[in-house]
């Protein structure tokens, strides 16, 4: 019996469509990802197993490796109101124009008594030159005033306070930050950490697996 000949087909596949898809996806992902804003303060955060995603529209208290404390505003809309409020309560003596100039900066890292002077400078000072917000002892913890002002401004609204710290920041600085938050009844807050895998065979791993 004569066998039916299977017609030989070319194994060449037209790759054009595949190529189109690959580059379409590529361009989509490149355009869709947000570029990270350059960080003024270099901080390497510790890692935790938490799976919650940190909001970027938050007020972040940042601890640099050398123990300086900065206040970063992820939410620009309230920044000016906070600055006006702190100007009033701490009588910094800033004019409206000076507050406007101050609002252009994205972070605060100076004690109250140096703010007016820093705004008069033609060249803005860098984060490395700043001494940070004083938190040294409980009597002179300026962060307490800052948190108080933030709480006042955010009254009735959802306030998300984050604390971000470097691996090598010393504990007393962190303890002082916690004191400042607790004095304003901010007992719930979040720490910014990088992600870490849950260790296998741990209790948390087992409970998640169920």
């Amino acid at each position, binding site marked *: 019996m004569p066998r039916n000949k299977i017609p030989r087909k070319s194994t060449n596949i*037209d*790759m*054009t*469509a*595949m*190529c189109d898809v*690959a*580059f379409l*996806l*590529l361009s989509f*992902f*490149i355009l869709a*990802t947000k570029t*990270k804003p350059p960080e003024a303060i270099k901080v390497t*955060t*510790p*890692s*935790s*197993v*938490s*799976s*919650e*995603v*940190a*909001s970027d529209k938050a007020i972040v208290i940042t*601890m640099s490796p050398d123990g300086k404390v900065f206040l970063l505003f992820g939410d620009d809309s309230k920044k000016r109101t906070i600055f006006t409020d702190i100007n009033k309560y701490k009588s910094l003596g800033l004019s409206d124009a000076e507050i406007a100039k101050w609002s252009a900066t994205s972070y605060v890292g100076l004690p109250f008594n140096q703010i007016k002077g820093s705004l008069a400078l033609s060249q803005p000072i860098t984060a490395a030159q700043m001494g940070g917000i004083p938190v040294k002892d409980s009597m002179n913890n300026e962060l307490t005033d800052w948190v108080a002002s933030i709480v006042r401004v955010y009254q009735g609204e959802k306030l998300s306070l*984050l*604390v971000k*710290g*470097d*691996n*090598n*920041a*010393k*504990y*007393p*600085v*962190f*303890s002082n930050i*916690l004191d400042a*938050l*607790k004095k304003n*009844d901010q*007992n*719930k*807050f*979040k*720490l*910014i*950490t*990088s*992600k*870490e895998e*849950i*260790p296998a065979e*741990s*209790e*948390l*791993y087992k*409970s998640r697996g169920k």
Partner: protein
Amino acid sequence: MAEMDTSSGGGHKKGPGVKKAKKQSTRVDLTPMVDLGFLLLTFFVFTTTMSQPSAMPINEPKEDKEHPTKVKNSAATTILLGKNNEVFYYFGELTDPSSQFKSSNYKGIRDIILERKRTVSPDDIVFIVKLNDDATFKNFVDIFDEMTINAIPAGHFARAPIAETDKQLIQKAEEASGLSN
């Protein structure tokens, strides 16, 4: 799609002396291009998801000086964090430092927490974390993360200010292991 119509569009006939140009295929092999596309794609997808920071919730207890939280002596474990990632711990109240005060590290503390969890009733179990002035922020995150990993319910572990006696014991232990400077 990648082909182009190269046939001369009908009608126009060439004379017998005119040589016909050899037709070459305009097909390009796009396989390497596809490879490159997907390689870049995977690279971008991986790097973007990795850099997302996570948020670790912390609930500090409200300060209430009139009603201090009572802890059962037998159910309490105090964890002390010193410099150079040193961890010390003791169970209950410290009455006999030489036998109770023990040294550990961040790997070993997990077994101690689990051991404690097995032997102490879950309603009473309390971990008190005290950090020395030399401890870093990483140490704090690590030990609180360890509580989450071992599924210690919230409210059963807390940060407490370090006592002078604890400090002295840490210093003594550090001196013994040659870490004091």
